[in-house]
């Protein structure tokens, strides 16, 4: 039995260890687009605290994979899935066969279509490499312009503030994503951000990002009203988009994410999905929903792995999705938690 897991995040990695636990004789392959082993992305803001060695972020030591006989294929992009032949095609034209497939590819930072042209001038923070690049681009005490300002961004933002950087949040409808907020709570939360020493620009639509002229900060964010804002780096934090492109011809149901039942099985019996990539049927909400957060994703990995190995468990969320306002006026998101 060859279990192939696409994705080396929390869901995929956890699923792999559960699979190994439950099916010791099987072959397990994790296919990852990244170069690194499974590391804790949630800790990345620590970069600004001087924790710059990626090894320090590893969840498992390299030996873990060897001990568990989990094959980790990195820098391998899956370009195609043939669900009939049960094969995957990798970008380097290698074909990998599977018996059971777990899709745990997570998501990528969502950038609104109007800003696509500006992507080269913006930094990311969704993996170690881009995070380091952003850190290196940011001078000491520099200004970070954070577009959107979802929960992940805010986690970074509070670290930056703590480490004496200046953060300007250009707020919009994705601010605090994936927390769903009402209009009132939103403004109080925005106020709380200011309490947290973030600058907040609200009510303005970003038109484009430009390289700034002269000797000042490197970037200029131009709003649709013509006004602008300069900073050293510009980070889009508009939430995530599931990475499902490679599945488009796989013959499984996909809406925004891969549609799975509560057992996390897709519309094909031998394919499961877990993590940020999947939309899980919620009988409660009578719709397919995304569930975020370390704990949820880890649970998904666990559920998928169990079901792949003959169990029949259903996913229930483990995370309180409510954004908290703390007594000191600052906010706290449960999505910032991990174990």
């Amino acid at each position: 039995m060859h279990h192939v897991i696409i994705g080396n995040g929390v869901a995929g990695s956890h699923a792999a260890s559960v699979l190994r636990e439950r099916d010791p004789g099987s072959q397990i392959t994790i296919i990852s687009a990244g170069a690194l082993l499974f590391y804790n992305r949630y800790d990345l803001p620590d970069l600004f605290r001087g924790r710059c060695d990626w090894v320090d972020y590893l969840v498992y030591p390299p030996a873990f994979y060897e001990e568990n006989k989990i094959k980790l294929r990195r820098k391998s992009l899956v370009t195609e899935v043939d669900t009939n032949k049960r094969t995957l095609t990798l970008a380097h034209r290698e074909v990998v066969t599977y018996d059971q497939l777990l899709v745990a590819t997570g998501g990528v930072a969502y950038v609104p279509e109007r800003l696509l042209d500006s992507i080269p001038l913006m930094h990311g923070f969704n993996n170690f490499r881009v995070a380091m690049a952003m850190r290196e681009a940011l001078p000491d005490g520099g200004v970070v312009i954070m577009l959107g300002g979802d929960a992940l961004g805010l986690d970074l933002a509070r670290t930056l503030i703590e480490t004496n950087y200046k953060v300007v949040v250009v707020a919009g409808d994705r601010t605090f994503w994936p927390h769903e907020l009402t209009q009132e709570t939103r403004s109080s939360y925005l106020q709380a951000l200011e309490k947290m020493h973030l600058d907040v620009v609200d009510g303005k639509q970003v038109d484009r990002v430009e390289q700034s002229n002269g000797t000042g900060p490197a970037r200029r964010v131009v709003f649709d009203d013509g006004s602008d804002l300069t900073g050293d780096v510009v980070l889009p934090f508009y939430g995530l988009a599931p990475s499902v492109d490679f599945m488009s011809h796989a013959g499984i149901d996909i809406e925004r994410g891969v549609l799975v039942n509560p057992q996390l099985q897709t519309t094909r019996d031998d394919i499961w999905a877990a993590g940020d990539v999947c939309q899980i049927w919620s009988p409660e909400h009578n719709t397919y929903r995304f569930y975020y957060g370390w704990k949820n994703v880890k649970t998904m990995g666990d559920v998928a792995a169990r079901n792949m190995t003959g169990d029949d468990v259903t996913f229930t969320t483990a995370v309180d999705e409510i954004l908290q306002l703390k007594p000191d006026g600052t906010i706290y998101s449960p999505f910032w938690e991990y174990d």
Partner: protein
Amino acid sequence: MTSIHTDVQIGICGSAGDGTIAVGDILKRAMARAGYRVIAFDEYPAEIRGFGKCVARTRITTEQVYSMKPKTDVLVSLNDAHAIPHAEEVRDFGAVIYDSAPITMIDEGWHISGHLNPGQLPYGLPMREISEQATGSSRSRNIVALGFVAGLYQLPRQAFIDAIAAKFQTKAAEVTQSNVAAFNAGYDNGAEIYRFDKVEVGPPARRTRVHDSTMMTGNAAVVRGCLDAGIETFFGYPITPATSIMERLAVEMPKHGARLLQTEDEISAISATVGAGFAGARAATATSGPGFALMSEMMGLGVMAEVPAVVFVSQRGGPSTGMPTKTEQADLNIAVFGGHGDAKRIVLAPTNVEGCWRCAGRAFEMAEAYQTPVVVLLDLYLSNRYETVVFPNKNPFVRDAWKRPTQDNANEPYRRFELTADGISPRAVPGDPHGIHTATGLEHNEFGRPNDLSAMHFQMTEKRHEKLNAALKHPGITIYKRFGDTGEVDVGLLAWGSTFGETLEAMLLARAEGIRCAAMKVVMLSPLPVKPIKRFLKDCKEVIVPELNYEGQFANLVSGAVGRDVIRFNRVTGKPMAVNEILDTIRSAAGKRKLRKSAA
């Protein structure tokens, strides 16, 4: 930035025809140009072209080292099928670079990215595409990959471009341009990559005469030694891994007015060498095991007729055809004892590339001074590995320093084989009217006339043996040397030839672990410097003799000479000795020592 002590080993693996060895060559030359010290060893197949595997390994260091590292830091795969078995050589947090955009579909499991250990860092690179973009052809994949490595580790770009230019200097200018373009494309790609690997390359050590450091193989060093010693004739027959000596001499010797001839076989080669030696020329030949076996009889003639001749023997896996492209140290016996009769000769076994140069040069001096064949024993590993060598400004080798007949008693018949106190007789060569004689393979008297009386045979045999003792004090060559802890040690390592590099590395690692140990290299295997070896062994509680043969030929030699058994550490894998395996042996020997102590 603190000065990083550079110690990086880069392996490039590909199929014959991929240009593996070529880029390896550019790499080490560039690094040597840049002022680093280099040791490099290529593995290549016996096959002419096609599917054979080539591995070019280069270790780049601040100070010269004499072995490859147990683990490679960076592996470049130009052919995954070949590189996959080598993936495990890469250390944790080392890098593996491969082509991420091959043109054809790959069967499952045949891409190297599927074979990396979790600790290794993959670098997929669309080498073919980049090559095509940069040069219009996919042929420069290897250069792209090299450029990528250089860019990745921010190696000095110009040194590489110079090395490439040098490499292709004999070709059309476009070739160089296109290769430089490919290199730059790769370099730029590499430079952009964010590195997760833990490979660090510091600046080269500051050296006043960087340009004097030359990077060359053992065989090339032999060639330089030959040239510096004023070689006049060379006769050879191609045989792996000695061929490159002849190839290089074929280019260089004519420039110096010296003559080289490819003979019809090894017998002819040694015969002509002995003939040229008889005629007074500095003559040499080079071969490997099978050829050397053919030469045994003529070596005996050289001993008997007291003719100088230098024979370079690069050992390879044996017996018989064995493993022509694999290294081994199993020709010690034939080098020291080979042939029939009491045919003692001088055998030098350099331990590194600089030693190859020195031994080659001194071998000519010794052959002439002691009037005997001298074997310089290399092995494939030493022959083919590159090291940076700093040569002295002044050519140290002495020419024409042999004892000649004096004109004092010109009326007396010339005694070519005069019995003297040191056993060395005045030697005349054809053209000298006062030294006419006939050299012979028959036992002879002082005049060279055949004579098989008991007393004469004894005296002459004694002379032929005892005269060689002077070689133990030959100036300008270190025939043995001790390293590591002084005084009494728990573990002593005794090694010869190329294996000494790994032995030294292992010894240093063991010392770092707190084990008291020392290592001695022995360069002159015959006559054996018995006294120093005895003194060293006296200091050692345990003695390990690591060597690349099955029974321990050197161990036998030493045990027999000093009357003490040693721990034999033998490997016959066709590969150089593994440092970590020696290290394990040191540990266990040290542990055994401790156990014994505690038991006591």
